[in-house]
C-alpha cells in the first residue's frame, strides 16, 4: 500500500516538477510564465506522434522539448520585444494552443479530442534489482522511467546552474536588476528569452511524459491544469529549486493519496481537494514559523 502510494506519488510529480523547474528559471530571469500549460499540451501531442512514427522515445522527448521551446520563444518575444503583458500572453497562449491542437487533430487525423496511435514507444522503466525489494526505498528508487530520474537530478542541477554557472548568474542578474545588467553590457532581453525557451522545453518534456510515460495516448485535456500546479509549485518554493520540488511532490503525493482515499466514506469531491488544501496549510505553517523566528531575531 504505502509503497504503491510512494511510487504513484513520484509518477504524478514528474510532469509538475519538470514544468515547475522550467518556470522557476523563467521567473528567476524575470518572466512569470502562465503559459506553461500550452507548452505542455503541444509537447504531449508531438511527443506521442514522434514516439509512434519513429518508435524511439528519445526522439519523442527531443521533439517535445523542441516544440515546447519554440512556443516558449514565441511567447518570450511577444513579451520582451512587443512589451506585451506576460500574464495575458500566457493566458492567451493557453487558449490559442488548445485551439490549434484541436484544429490539428481534426484536419490531420480527422479525430477530435483523443488521439491514440499504433506502436507508441513508451518510456522504459528502470528496474534496480536489489533495491526494488527493499520496502520504501524500492518504491522511491526502482521502476521509474528515465524522465522521472532526469527531473529529480535536474533539481540539484538547476540549483547548481543558477548558483555556479555563468549563464545562471547572468539570468539572475537579468531578473533582479535588468538596468544594472544592461549597464554592464549584458542583454537582459536575450537572457530572458533564453530562460523562456528553457521553460518551454521543460514543459514540452512534461507533456511528453504524460503521453509516453504514463498513458500511450493523447487527449486534449491531458495536461489537466498541471501547468498551473507547476506555477503554484515554484511560487511555493519562492524560486528555490528544492522547495519548489517539495511543492511539486506535495501535489503528487496528496494526489496519489486522495485517489486511494476515495470510496472510503468521505465524499469524492472533498477528498479531491486534498492536494490544494495541503499546499495552503503548509505555506501557512512555514510563514508562521518564519515570523516567529524573525520576532525572536529582532
Amino acid at each position, binding site marked *: 500500500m504505502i509503497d504503491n502510494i510512494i511510487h504513484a506519488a513520484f509518477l504524478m510529480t514528474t510532469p509538475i516538477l519538470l514544468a515547475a523547474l522550467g518556470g522557476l528559471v523563467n521567473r528567476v530571469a524575470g518572466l512569470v510564465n502562465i503559459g506553461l500549460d500550452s507548452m505542455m499540451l503541444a509537447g504531449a501531442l508531438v511527443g506521442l506522434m514522434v514516439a509512434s512514427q519513429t518508435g524511439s522515445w528519445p526522439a519523442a522527448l527531443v521533439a517535445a522539448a523542441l516544440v515546447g521551446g519554440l512556443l516558449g520563444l514565441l511567447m518570450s518575444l511577444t513579451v520582451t520585444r512587443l512589451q506585451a503583458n506576460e500574464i495575458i500572453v500566457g493566458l492567451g497562449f493557453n487558449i490559442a494552443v488548445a485551439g490549434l491542437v484541436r484544429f490539428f487533430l481534426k484536419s490531420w487525423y480527422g479525430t477530435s479530442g483523443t488521439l491514440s496511435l499504433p506502436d507508441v514507444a513508451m518510456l522504459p522503466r528502470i528496474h534496480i534489482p536489489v533495491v526494488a525489494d527493499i520496502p520504501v526505498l524500492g518504491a522511491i528508487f526502482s521502476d521509474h522511467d528515465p524522465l522521472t530520474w532526469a527531473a529529480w537530478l535536474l533539481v540539484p542541477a538547476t540549483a547548481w546552474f543558477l548558483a555556479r*554557472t555563468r549563464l545562471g548568474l547572468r539570468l539572475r542578474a537579468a531578473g533582479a536588476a535588468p538596468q544594472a545588467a544592461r549597464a554592464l*553590457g549584458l542583454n537582459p532581453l536575450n537572457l530572458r528569452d533564453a530562460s523562456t525557451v528553457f521553460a518551454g522545453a521543460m514543459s514540452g518534456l512534461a507533456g511528453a511524459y504524460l503521453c509516453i510515460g504514463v498513458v500511450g495516448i493523447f487527449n486534449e485535456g491531458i495536461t489537466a491544469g498541471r501547468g498551473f500546479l507547476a506555477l503554484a509549485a515554484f511560487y511555493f518554493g519562492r524560486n528555490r529549486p528544492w522547495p519548489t520540488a517539495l511543492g511539486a511532490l506535495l501535489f503528487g503525493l496528496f494526489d496519489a493519496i486522495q485517489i486511494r482515499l476515495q470510496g472510503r466514506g468521505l465524499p469524492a469531491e472533498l477528498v479531491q481537494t486534498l492536494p490544494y488544501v495541503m499546499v495552503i496549510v503548509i505555506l501557512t505553517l512555514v510563514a508562521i514559523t518564519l515570523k516567529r523566528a524573525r520576532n525572536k531575531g529582532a
Partner: protein
Amino acid sequence: MSMDEFQPDTTIRLGAQGVTRRFGALVANDGITFRAHRGTIHAIVGGNGAGKSTLMRILQGMDRPDEGVVLVDGMPTVFFGPADAFQKGIGMVHQEFMLVPGLTLLENLVLAQEPLDGLRRIDRRKALDAARKLEREAGVTLDWDMPVDDAPVHVRQIVEILRLLYRGADVLILDEPTAVLAPAQVQELIVLLQKLRSEGRTILFISHKLDEVMALADEITVIRAGKVIGAMKTAETSKAALAEMMIGEILSRPNARPSAVGRTVLELRGLAAKDARGVLRLKELDLDIRAGEIVGIAGVAGNGQDELIAAVTGLGRIERGSVRLDGEDVTRLGLRDRRERGLSYLSPDRAAEGLCLAAPISENLIAGRHRAAALCKGGVLQKGAIRRHVETLLDRFSVKRASSALPISSLSGGNQQRVAMARELDGDPKLLVACQPTRGVDIRGIAFIHQCLLDYREAGGAVLVISEELDELIALSDRIVVLYDGRVTGEVSRGSAKVEELGRMMLGETRAEIAA
C-alpha cells in the same frame, strides 16, 4: 563642424562633440562639447538636472545622442551599447546604484566577465584572487561573500569602482560617487582616485560638493541647463566662481538667528534596538529635543543612525527604552499614530521611500495628509481645495515643474527633494525627523532646504537632523550629538563645533581625549 575638418587629438582620452539629447520637449544636453585628457581627473559640475548624468550615460553607451558624437582617443565614435564602451576601456559608476540585489559582492564584481574553469563553471578561486588583488590596489578589505543587500553604501560604492577596474577600464566615469559617503569615506575615495590617476587612468568626476571638486580635479567643465557654461583648469578658478557659473547667481548663506527653545518635544530614554539581522546597534541612548531647536546626529554610517530613525519614527521595533512625543508616551505606537501626534519624517531614501516616483507630483505632495479635513470630506477628495493647496505649496518651495499632474519622476533631483520637504513641513508638525535632507541636491537646492529648516525652527519647530554632511550639521544644528557604536559619545553646541574635532569623535574618541 563637419568630420573632414576634424583632426584627432590623441591626448583626448574621452570627450563629446556637439552632443544633444532631447527628452520630448526637454533638451537635457544641448550641443555639449568637452574634452577629458588622458591621465587627468576631469570634474563635471552643474545644478540638478543640468544634464550631467545624461551626458555620462551617453559617454558610456547606455544612451545615444540625438546629435553630435562621442570622442574616444580623439576619434569620433559611435557606441552600440555599454559592452562596446567597456571594449574601449570606458566604465561608469552610475548615480543610482547598479549592483544586482540578491547577488554577493563577488558575483557582482565578476558579473558579465566571469572567469571560468575547465567545467565552464564560474571559477570562484580565480574570481576571489582577482578580487583580493583589486582590494590591495584600492587599499581596502571586503567580505566578498556578503550579499549586496547587506553591504553598507560605501562598500557598494567601492565594489562598483573595483568592478570597473576588474573589467579593465582605464576611463572611470563616477556620477556623484560621494553623495552617499561619510566624510571619512570621502577621504578614502579621494585618495583612491588620486592613486588611480597616478597610474595613468582618466577619471570623470561628478559632484555637487565643490570642496571635493577643487581638491581632486585637474580640469572642470561647468554645465547649466544642458549647455556648457565654461571649462577651465582647477587652478584658474575658485569655489565661489564655480558656484556662480553653475547657478547663475550668488547665494546668500542661510543664517541661523537665535531662537527661543521651549518645552521638550522628543524624549528618548534608554533606547536599545537591533538591526534587521538581529545585531544590537543602538545601546542605551538618551536624547531630548526641545521646541525651537535643531539637534544633529553625527556619526559614521552603521553606528546606530538607522535604528535611531526607526525607533523615533516607529518604523522599527525596539528592544528596550521609551519614546515620548510632546510629553505623550508613544513607544507602543506605529509611524501612523505618531504622525497623527505631530511627527514628521523626511526619508533618507528619496527614490524608494521618500517619494512615489510613478505617482503625480500633486499626490506625492498630499500623501499621508490627504485625509486632512481641508482636503477630504467624507472620504471624498476635494479636488479644488487640493489643487489650490498643492500649487501654493509648490510655489512656496519654488519647485520647477511643467505640471503638478506629471509623475514626480519628471522632476530633477533637487526639485524632488523640495517636494518631499514641502510635504513634511506642511501642517506644521511638532517634530521633524530629517534624514540626509540634501543628499544629491545641488548648492542652490541645499541653500533653499537649509533655509526651510531654520525657518521652521524659528517658528518653534523641533528638528532631528541625521546627516553625513558635517558642514550641513554645523550649519544647521544648535547641538550636534555624536553617535558611536550605538551610544552618545559627545555633544557639541552651535559655534563651538569644528569639523576635524567632530571627525575624531565620530571615530570613538571622547572630547576629553581630543583635548588632551
